[in-house]
């Protein structure tokens, strides 16, 4: 079974007061995070941590080599769920906002390196625009044996039709869907335009000189521990391609 961690930020009053961001508060952050948490725990998975608001720190996902502490948090669990405001930089790096500077207000994906010698297999970020679909390879550095990053290529809505998304994703995972399908289906209500995307890396046989063997990819084969197959880790040396799957309306 899996160990998972949850971080959710609903209030951004400190970031606004500090002049760091104009980001508004969210409403349904913990509807989603609690639903995700309770569904997985009821299926026997272990919650390693659940941090909320100013207890969520950017150092939790920043690589230890970069002065962060991912070894104790995000890189110490199989599955990590985070909800906050996000965006991407002009060069395609993901960024996410925190409500406390521990030690920075924002995290940037060039400082993530997940999976290394540790645990992280899947990261799920309910945040707007953390993936630039025109520059997906800008995220390549985060895959140090990480399997799949689940994010958004445009807005993700905070509202009354998306308040069950966390539970939907978790239910899909425990019902045996692949991680990629669980995310895309779970955060989509097929009405409001959430923009889910899942990104992974593949080996040379998957790239197959550009004639992709999709059936070999994490997108097709990776399930949550205890609910189906989990492919072996791919070290950076084994990675030959980056693959992504998304929904658009």
């Amino acid at each position, binding site marked *: 079974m899996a160990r998972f961690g949850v971080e959710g930020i609903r209030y951004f009053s400190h970031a606004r007061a500090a002049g760091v961001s104009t980001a508004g508060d969210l409403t349904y952050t913990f509807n989603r995070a609690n639903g995700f948490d309770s569904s997985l725990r009821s299926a026997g998975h272990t919650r390693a941590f659940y941090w909320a608001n100013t207890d969520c720190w950017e150092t939790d996902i920043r690589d230890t080599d970069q002065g962060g502490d991912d070894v104790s948090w995000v890189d110490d669990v199989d599955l990590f769920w985070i909800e906050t405001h996000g965006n991407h930089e002009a060069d395609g790096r993901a960024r996410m906002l925190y409500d406390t500077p521990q030690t920075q207000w924002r995290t940037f994906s060039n400082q993530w390196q997940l999976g290394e010698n540790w645990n992280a297999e899947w990261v799920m970020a309910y945040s707007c625009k953390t993936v630039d679909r025109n520059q997906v390879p800008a995220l390549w550095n985060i895959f140090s044996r990480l399997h799949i990053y689940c994010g958004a290529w445009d807005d993700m809505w905070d509202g009354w039709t998306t308040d069950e998304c966390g539970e939907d994703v978790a239910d899909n995972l425990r019902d045996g869907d692949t991680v990629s399908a669980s995310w895309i289906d779970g955060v989509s209500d097929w009405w409001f335009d959430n923009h889910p995307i899942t990104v992974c890396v593949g080996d040379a046989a998957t790239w197959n000189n550009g004639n992709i063997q*999709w059936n070999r990819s994490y997108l097709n084969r990776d399930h949550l521990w205890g609910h189906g197959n989990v492919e072996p880790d791919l070290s950076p040396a084994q990675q030959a391609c980056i693959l992504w799957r998304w929904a658009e309306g």
Partner: protein
Amino acid sequence: MDEKQLIEKMADTAGQIPSHAEVFAVRQYSLEEIHRRAKRFLAIASEVCEQPTDRGDWVQQDNRTLVRLPMGGRAVFHHASGAMKLTTNISPMEALFPKVEAKESLVRLVEATAERLRIGEWAGARESLSFERLWQIKASAADRNYRAIEPVLCRIVGAYRHVVGKLPVWGAASVAVQVAGTGALDSVSVQIRESTGEPIDWAPVVRPDVAAQQVLTQLSGLMGKSNVPLSQLVVPQWFGFGYISLNKRKSQRVLAPHYVAAIAIAGQPEAQAYQFVVPATERTFLPLCQAGNHPPVTAARAVASKQVATAARAFRAYQ
């Protein structure tokens, strides 16, 4: 644009608003009825999938019934709402479309599948379903030299909207039909709040500018104090009028008119997107919980806890 102009702009996009609207009771289902509907749903899906669905493994969980199907798929039935979903056993990156086809032909394919699924049968009297939107799930890849391939089309999803009387029922797609590249059914979900048929009230409707003002008040509460005026941040995306259907894990007694708004915050370091719903009647027929939940109570985090965790890991590594 100042706030007054913003309100006018939103109100204009709501379209023609009636002075009064009907309020309907929602048909409620006992567990027995839910299971009866489930068997009918599975029987229809079985014809389309050409796979047996009558010998599934039925498991009743807290708030839903899960049916594991003999060929590897599953179906889920939510007790609070009667929502139903069937998922077949096709892996997500198998049965891809040979090429990215024109939207019109994809719509035809999904409409044909929806017809075979007889989705219209789930709507009640004086109710209908209409095609709303085509969604596409695609995939792409790039090599180490950032050489990207042309996207492949994995699935298409046809979303349908439930209409009661003359008003749409907003919420998650009332029906969503997902089709694989072979034309095979990948999944189908039905999330329809069927009315009892007879209106229980004929309520005066609030003007759209009044509702738009309420939406902006809610938004203002979320945005807090900022040096940038709210009206300069807001980009209204959509403002609609109709009934609402709550999510599938929630029970609901009535279909009452509401205004629904989608507002994005653009041009700021953080992208933001908010949905709002406000009653379109002075009397509250459907109480909405708009406060949001709180996180579980856990011990407050301190720097020490992080240090302890790091130390514990170092100790484990040392051992």
